[in-house]
C-alpha cells in the first residue's frame, strides 16, 4: 500500500566551510492516497528531502546515500534515484508533481495559464487531440475554482490565491499518484488558504493521489494530515498519525512544538516553548542532535544517536522511548 519508500536517504550541500548534512539517514513511507504532513523548523531539511524525492536537486546538493522506491498500482516499481533523463520526464507530472511555495516562480510569467496547462498535456499526453486538451484545461481550472475564461489570462493578472490554484491545476493535469506541496499556502491569506486546503482535500478524495504537505505550521498539519513526520536537524525524529501526535506526542521536540503555539479556543494553556536555537548543520551536536534543547535529556543523550524505532501508533527516535519499543508495539497490535 506504500506508493513511495524512502530508505536511508542522505543529502549534503557542499560548501567552502564544509558539508551541510541537510538530510541524514531518512527512512519514510508514503501510503497510497494519504496526506502526509512534513513538519520542522526552517533549515530542518524538509524542502531538501522533497526535492531529492522529486529529483529536483541541483549542485551543490548531492545525494550521499539511500534509495527511493516508487510503486505503481500495477505492481511495477521504479528506482527513482536511478531514472534516466527520458524516464524522469515520464515520471514527473504523470506520477509525481510538485507545487512550490511561490506559484509565481513555478508559472511562466510570459505564457497564458491555458498554454501552460496545454504544454504539460501536449508533452506528456501526446495522444490527446488539441480539442481534448483545451477541454481538459478548462475542466482543470474549474476544478480548482477558477473560471475557465482565465485560460487566456497571464499569471500577473491573477491574485496570489488564484495563482496558487492554477499551479495546483497544472499539478493535477496528468492525474499523478503523488503531489508534493512545499509550503503551498504560506504566502496566502488564511481565509484563502483554508479554501485551497478544502479544495485539495476534496480533489484527493476524488482522484486518490497521495500528498506530501510541507509546512512549519504544525497546527495546520494536525488539521489536514493523515500522518505527520517531524524533522529535526535533517532527521525524521517522529512519525505518527495526526491524532497520535496531537494527543500523545512522544518526542520531546514534537511536544515542545505543540506547546509553543497559542490556541484559539479552549482554556489559555501555559505555553512551554523550546529553549535555545536550531543547530548549525555543519556541526550538529553529537548523539541526539536535540539534546542541548531537550528538557528531558539525560547523560547518555549526547553520546549515542537514538534510532527511529517503532512505537504504538508510529515511530520515534528518542532514548526515552527505547524501552517502549517494538515489543510493546507488537503486543498492542495483537
Amino acid at each position, binding site marked *: 500500500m506504500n506508493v513511495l519508500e524512502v530508505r536511508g536517504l542522505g543529502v549534503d550541500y557542499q560548501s567552502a566551510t564544509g558539508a551541510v548534512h541537510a538530510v541524514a539517514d531518512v527512512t519514510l513511507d508514503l501510503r497510497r492516497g494519504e496526506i502526509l504532513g512534513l513538519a520542522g*523548523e*526552517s533549515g530542518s531539511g524538509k524542502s531538501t528531502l522533497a526535492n531529492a524525492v522529486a529529483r529536483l536537486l541541483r549542485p551543490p546538493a548531492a545525494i550521499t546515500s539511500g534509495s527511493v522506491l516508487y510503486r505503481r498500482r500495477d505492481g511495477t516499481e521504479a528506482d527513482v534515484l536511478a531514472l534516466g533523463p527520458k524516464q524522469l520526464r515520464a515520471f514527473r507530472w504523470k506520477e509525481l508533481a510538485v507545487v512550490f511555495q511561490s506559484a509565481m516562480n513555478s508559472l511562466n510569467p510570459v505564457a497564458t495559464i491555458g498554454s501552460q496547462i496545454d504544454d504539460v498535456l501536449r508533452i506528456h499526453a501526446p495522444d490527446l487531440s488539441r480539442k481534448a486538451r483545451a477541454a481538459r484545461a478548462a475542466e482543470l481550472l474549474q476544478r480548482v*475554482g477558477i473560471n475557465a475564461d482565465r485560460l487566456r489570462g497571464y499569471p500577473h493578472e491573477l*491574485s496570489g*490565491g*488564484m495563482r496558487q490554484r492554477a499551479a495546483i491545476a497544472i499539478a493535477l493535469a496528468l492525474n499523478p499518484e503523488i503531489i508534493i506541496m512545499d509550503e503551498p499556502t504560506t*504566502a496566502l*491569506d*488564511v*481565509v*484563502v*488558504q*483554508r*479554501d485551497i486546503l*478544502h*479544495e485539495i*482535500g*476534496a480533489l484527493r478524495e476524488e482522484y486518490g493521489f497521495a500528498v506530501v504537505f510541507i509546512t*512549519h*505550521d*504544525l*497546527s*495546520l498539519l*494536525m*488539521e489536514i494530515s493523515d500522518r505527520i513526520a517531524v524533522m529535526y536537524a535533517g532527521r525524521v525524529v517522529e512519525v505518527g498519525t495526526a491524532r497520535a501526535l*496531537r494527543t500523545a506526542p512522544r518526542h520531546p521536540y514534537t511536544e*515542545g*512544538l505543540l506547546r*509553543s*503555539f*497559542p*490556541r*484559539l*479556543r*479552549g482554556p*489559555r494553556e501555559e*505555553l512551554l*516553548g*523550546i*529553549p535555545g*536555537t*536550531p543547530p548549525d548543520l555543519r556541526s550538529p551536536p553529537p548523539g541526539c542532535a536535540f539534546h542541548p534543547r531537550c528538557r528531558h535529556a539525560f547523560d547518555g543523550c549526547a553520546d549515542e544517536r537514538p534510532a527511529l524505532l517503532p512505537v504504538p501508533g508510529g515511530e520515534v527516535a528518542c532514548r526515552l522511548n527505547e524501552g517502549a519499543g517494538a515489543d510493546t508495539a507488537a503486543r498492542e497490535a495483537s
Partner: protein
Amino acid sequence: MIVLEGRNLTKHFTAARGRWGRRPPVRAVEDVSLALRAGRVSALVGESGCGKSTVARLLAQVYPATSGDVLLRGEVVRAHRGAAFRSYRRQVQLIFQDPFASLNPFHRVRYHLARPLRVHGHAKSDAHERELVAELLERVSLTPVDQFMDKLPHELSGGQRQRVAIARALAVRPVALIADEPVSMLDVSIRLGVLRLLEKLADESGLALLYITHDIASARYFAEDITVMYAGRLVESGPAEALTQAARHPYTRLLLESAPDPDRVTPRERQRHGEPPSLADPPGGCRFHPRCPVALPVCSTTVPGRTELGDGRWTHCWEAAGD
C-alpha cells in the same frame, strides 16, 4: 493613560504616472482610530496587505497621513523630519518583521546599542555606555552579555537578532513601541520567547505596545485588547478573550473559522469565500460586503458607523447596528 493615539487616520498612496496615465491611488488606510495605553499590549490583527504596516508607519511619523491626526500624550504631532522627528523617535520606536534586514551586517551588537545611547545623550562616559549596553542585553536576555556584545549580526540566530532590535529600540527609552509582525519570520519554537519579552517590557517598564500580527491566536495570548482590520478599515475591537471567543463582526468570525486550529470540532466544509479586494478599487459601502454571508442592501452603499457593544467592545457593521 493614553500615550499614543491615531484619530481618523487615512492614507492614500498616489501611484506614479504609469505608461497609461495616472493610476488610481491605493486607499491603504481609511479612517483608522487607535489608542495605546501605558503598560498595555494592544494588538492590531489583519491579513497581509490590509494596511497594518501603513498604520504602524503613520503612528511612527514615517510619512504624513492624507488626513487625520497622531497624538502623543494628547498633543497633535507632525514631526516627519529634522529635530522634531528625532525627538519624536526618542519616544516612539518601531520594530520590524525582518530581523535580518534591520541590523547593519558590518557592526557588532555593541555598536548597534551604543549608537542610540550616544545620539540621544543617555551615555555620560565610555564606562557608563558599556554599563548601559550590558543592561540592555540583560533586559532582552542576551546573556552572558560579554559574549553577545562583540558578535556580528550573522553570528546570531533570527530570534537573537530580533532581541538585539528590541534592545536597540529600548536604548532610547521610548514611551511607546510599535512591533510590526515581530515574530512572523521566526521559527515557532523561538517566537514564544520574543513575545514573552515584549509582554514583560510593557508590564515592567510601562511601555505602550502595539503588537501587529496576522496571527489572531497569538494576539489572544499576548494582548489585552485586539483591533481587527480588513481592507484598510477597522472592523471590530474589544478585550482579547471576549473578541476571540465571541466575535461580532462577520469578517472576524471568518478569520477565526479560517485560522489553523488542531482543536477544531466542526468538520471540513467545502466553500469558497472569495479574496480580499484590491485597495486601488475597494468595494463601496462596507468593504467586506462582497464576501459577507449576512450582507444587507444598505451594506453595499453606505459605510457602517461604529456600534458600541459595551464592555469596551465596538464594531462597524450594519447587521450589529440593527440589533
